[in-house]
C-alpha cells in the first residue's frame, strides 16, 4: 500500500536532482527491487533483529522507536488513566440517572468527544488555555535547556492528556452506560437490593463488575490505538512520541520507519488482546482458559 502511494522517499524528490543520481540512490536503498523481494529482504532483516535504517533520519529504526516510545507511553498512559476513571464514573452516573439532566449533559459531552476532530479540538484547547488564558504551554514535552523537574513535565502533559483522554473517554462512557443499564435490569440486582444491600455496594460491587466486561474489551481496543494512534494529538502538541514519528515517516515515505512502527503497533495489539483476555478471567469467574 505504501509503495503504491504517489511519490517516494522525500530525499528522492528534489527537483534539482539528476535522474541518474536518483536512480543511483534508489539502487543504494534497494528500492529498485520488486516489492516482493523488498519485503523478503525486510523480513530477513527483522528475523535478525534489525528493523533497518530510516531514510529521513539516517538512524536505525529500532533506535528511533526506542527513543520515541517513552514519550508516547507517558502520554497514552496518562490519557488512558483519565479516560478509564472518568469514563467509567460518568458512564455509571449516566446509567443510574437515566434520562435526567445529568444523563443528558453526559450524553452530549460524550457525543462531542466521539465526533470532534482531534486536530480542531487540540487547537481550540491551545487557543483557550495557552493563548487566551496563558495558563499552560502550547506544545512540547518540557522546557528546553532546563533541568528536569516533575512540575515542568506535568504542565506540558496537561493539555495533550486532556484532549486524548476526553476523546477516548467518550467511548468508554457510552459503553459503560449501555452495559450498566443492561446489568441493572437483571434479576440478581433486584435480589441484591431486596436483601437490603446499600446502593453503592449494589452498583460498584454487583453491577459494575459484570458491566465491565464489554468496557474492558473497548479499553483493550483503545490501548494500541492510544499508543500508535495518538498521532494527531502528538502532532498538534509537538509531543515527540511514536505517533508523530509515524506521521512524519508517512509524509516522507520513510518505508523502513513505517514498517517498524507498524510492527511495534501489531505487537501492542497482541499484548493488549492478551491483557484483555486475562482481565475477563478476573471479572467473570465462569471464564477459564484451559
Amino acid at each position, binding site marked *: 500500500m505504501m509503495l503504491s502511494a504517489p511519490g517516494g522517499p522525500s*530525499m528522492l524528490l*528534489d527537483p534539482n536532482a539528476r535522474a541518474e*543520481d536518483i536512480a543511483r540512490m534508489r539502487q543504494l536503498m534497494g528500492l529498485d527491487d520488486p516489492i516482493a523481494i523488498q519485503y523478503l529482504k525486510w523480513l530477513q532483516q527483522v528475523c535478525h533483529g534489525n528493523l533497518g535504517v530510516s531514510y529521513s533520519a*539516517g538512524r536505525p529504526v529500532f533506535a528511533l522507536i526506542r527513543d520515541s516510545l517513552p514519550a508516547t507511553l507517558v502520554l497514552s498512559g496518562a490519557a488512558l488513566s483519565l479516560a478509564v476513571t472518568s469514563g467509567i464514573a460518568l458512564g455509571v452516573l449516566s446509567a443510574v440517572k437515566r434520562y435526567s439532566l445529568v444523563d443528558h449533559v453526559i450524553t452530549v459531552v460524550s457525543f462531542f468527544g466521539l465526533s470532534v476532530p482531534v486536530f480542531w479540538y487540540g487547537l481550540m484547547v491551545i487557543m483557550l488555555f495557552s*493563548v487566551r488564558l496563558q495558563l499552560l504551554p*502550547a506544545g*512540547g514535552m518540557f522546557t528546553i535547556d532546563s533541568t528536569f523537574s516533575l512540575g515542568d513535565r506535568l504542565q506540558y502533559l496537561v493539555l495533550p492528556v486532556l484532549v486524548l483522554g476526553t476523546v477516548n473517554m467518550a467511548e468508554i462512557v457510552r459503553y459503560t452506560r449501555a452495559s450498566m443499564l443492561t446489568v441493572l435490569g437483571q434479576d440478581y440486582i433486584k435480589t441484591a437490593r431486596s436483601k437490603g444491600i446499600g446502593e453503592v455496594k449494589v452498583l460498584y460491587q454487583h453491577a459494575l463488575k459484570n458491566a465491565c466486561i464489554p468496557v474492558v474489551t473497548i479499553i483493550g481496543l483503545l490501548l494500541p490505538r492510544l499508543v500508535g494512534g495518538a498521532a494527531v494529538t502528538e502532532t498538534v502538541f509537538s509531543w515527540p512520541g511514536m505517533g508523530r514519528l509515524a506521521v*512524519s515517516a508517512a509524509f516522507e515515505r520513510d518505508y523502513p520507519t513505517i514498517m517498524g512502527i507498524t510492527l511495534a503497533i501489531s505487537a501492542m495489539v497482541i499484548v493488549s488482546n492478551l491483557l484483555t483476555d486475562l482481565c475477563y478471567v478476573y471479572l467473570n469467574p465462569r471464564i477459564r482458559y484451559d
Partner: protein
Amino acid sequence: MILTNGMYRYSRQEPLCRRLVKAIVILLCAGLSVVTTWACAEAPKRGGTLTIPLNGNPRMWPLVGGLPNILVNKVLYNYLLEYDAETLAPRGDMAERWEVSADGLVWTFYLRKQVTWHDGHPFTANDVKFSFEVRTHPDIPFYLRGNLAGLQRVEVVDEQTVKMIFDERKASLPVILGYLMDIIPEHLLKGYAPKDLLNPNEFLQRPIGTGPFKFKEFVPNSHVTLVPNEMYFEGRPYLNNMVFKIISDLDVQVAQLQTGALDFVPLEPHQLQAVAALPHIETRLARQVNYTFIGLNHTYPLFQDIRVRQALTYGLDRAAVLKTVALGKGMLSVGPISPFLEWVYHKGLRSR
C-alpha cells in the same frame, strides 16, 4: 534563501531587540515588494535565545536536502561564497576573494585565514577540495551534483588557495557556490567510505562546521539547540542560544508565536490575520525570489502546441489568483528570474 540569509544575518550580526520586538514574523509569499531592514533603535546587546520553528527533523548534513536540514546547516556550516542580503549578488564567505582565468575555465579562490572548525582544527584548502570531490564522486549520488557539471578537478595551491578547474565556461559558478555547497571537514570525514558519506552516522551525532553556531543538542521531533561559536571568524554571535523547535503544523507554530514560545515564524498570507491585531507581534514583509507556477508536461502531445499553452496561460486570471490566494502579497511574474535579483533581471521585460 532570503529568509534563511535573513535569519543568518540577524542571528550573528544583529541584536535581539526583545523590548521592541517580542516576536518577528516574516510573511512568505512570492515576490513581495516591501524591503525588510533589521533596523533597531537600541545599541546591540549580547544575550538571549532565539527560538524558531522547523517543520521537520533536520539531518544537519549538507549532502542531503530538505528545508529543516538546510536551515540548521545555514548557521552550522559556511559556503565558499554567500549572497548579499540586499542585492543577492554573490560575495565572499569562506573565500575572501576569487578570480577567474582569461579562458573562463580556472577559478581561483583565496580563503580566509585563521578560521577553525568547531573542534578547533584549522580550516584549509584541503577541506574545500574534499567538499567538492565528495560532491562529484561517482559513487556518491549527491542531489545537486548537476550544479557542478563540468568540474574537472580541484587543486590545492597552498593552505589558503584553491583552484577549481572546469572543462567548460561556467559563468554561474559564484551563484552555485552560494547555494547549498557547504564546506565540510576533511579531517573528520575522510575516513568514511563513499557509500557511507550519504549518512555518516557517527559524525552526525555531533556535527562540526565552521558556522557562527555550534551543535549542542538534538532531541528528534522536539528541538535542536545551538550555542555560539566563540571563535567565529566574524566575531561571536550576539545570541546566547539558538533553538530550532520542531513543529510540523503551521497553525501550531502560529499559536506558539502568540504565546511567546517562538520568537519568529514565517507566515503564509492567510495566517496574517491571526496575528495582525496582537500588540506584541510585529509582522514584516520579506523579499523572496521564489515563484509559484503551473508546469505543463511537454511530453503530452497536446501541450506541445504553443497555442494550447498560450491559451491556458491567457485564460488564467493571474491577478485574481494573486489577490485572493496570496491576498495581494506578491507580484505577477514575467519569468523565473525575480525583479529582486537586480543584477540579472532584465528590466525591459513585460508580460503580454
